[in-house]
């Protein structure tokens, strides 16, 4: 690769990195907004809280819908959940991240995509 080629690729790489970071920041903002909206009492950080049916029953309706979708799909992105629930991707992203903070879901990044799942195997 020539020096010119490297230089011409670099701005693209930097821009992609910036976009990735902005997406992560956006997700964090969504969580903060969600916490403000629904108060902190529902969102105490917990480690590996079991996502069992009684927990699902006691959840607020908006979070139950998201959590149920993850239960059915096993593993999904905010985009995939939003297709199932017919709500906006940003809304599902906020709810999913809130469920992660509450300890009910785990989040794993693969490239630019973030996957959410209930980690049943760690619950031993």
């Amino acid at each position, binding site marked *: 690769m020539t020096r010119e080629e490297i230089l011409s690729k670099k701005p693209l790489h930097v821009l992609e990195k910036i976009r990735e970071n902005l997406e992560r920041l956006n997700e964090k903002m969504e969580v903060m907004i969600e916490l403000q909206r629904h108060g902190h009492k529902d969102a105490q950080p917990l480690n590996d809280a*079991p*996502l*069992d*049916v*009684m*927990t*699902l*029953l006691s959840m607020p*309706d908006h979070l*139950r*819908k998201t959590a*149920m979708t993850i*239960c*059915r799909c*096993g593993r999904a992105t905010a985009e995939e959940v939003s297709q199932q629930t017919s709500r906006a991707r940003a809304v599902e992203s906020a709810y999913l991240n809130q469920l992660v903070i509450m300890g009910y879901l785990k989040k794993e990044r693969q490239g630019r995509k973030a996957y959410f799942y*209930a980690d*049943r*195997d760690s*619950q*031993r």
Partner: protein
Amino acid sequence: MSKIVAVHSYKGGTGKTLLSVNLAATFAKHGKKVCLFDLDFRAPSLFAILKVDNAECWLNDYLNGNCSINKVLIDLSSRILGNGKFFAALANPTTEAIREMSAKDRKWEMRALGRLLSLRNTLLNDQFDYLIFDTSPGLQYSSINAIVTADFVVVATTGDRSDVDGTRRMLQELYNLFEKKTGLVINKVLDPTSKSQKEEMDKRVKNVYQVPMLGLVPCFCEVLRAEGNLIFAQDKPNHPFTKILDEMATKIENNDVN
């Protein structure tokens, strides 16, 4: 379209097991591939109804993560009429197993939910058209796990005062929250042929339960007299109960429960 159907009720003795076994047999008679699950771990009964003496593995073992689901399935297809398939997955009836299942914690129940949900991928479509879950009555873990997993819930109830109010609350506060499609079966109805009785039932379902009615089952002395020894859908093809089951199964098959 393949489906998981849970049969549930608020109180015991409403006819869940009778409905589960006969609905499964009816689907099989219609040429479908069916597997019947005994999820009533507190009072297992399918092993007795289906006259299975012993199983290589029980459903308990699958939910405990000790064996694959295929080791639990028992092929009873030779016992049914037609080209359908009829399998069963049974709950361990020993006192020790019942005691052990009643002492499970929330984390175990969460894993059990995961294992039930995974049946959709492992059994539905390729192996089976219908999975029928016979459950314990009321609001308890194994039953709610079954309801969450199911696509459609058959709710069995009777006209008894003690059952009506609880069933109504369960429909509003359990099935609604999980956005489950339900069909109500009113069992043990006296004098269902009279017009006034039918009108009364329709009115009650509309006003009290606010869910679609799947069927009305009269109180048949022949069912009691059979003492659990007959599967009416198979053994009594011309009995009125068999005809009612045919209608219910057809409604479920055609998504025609409104």
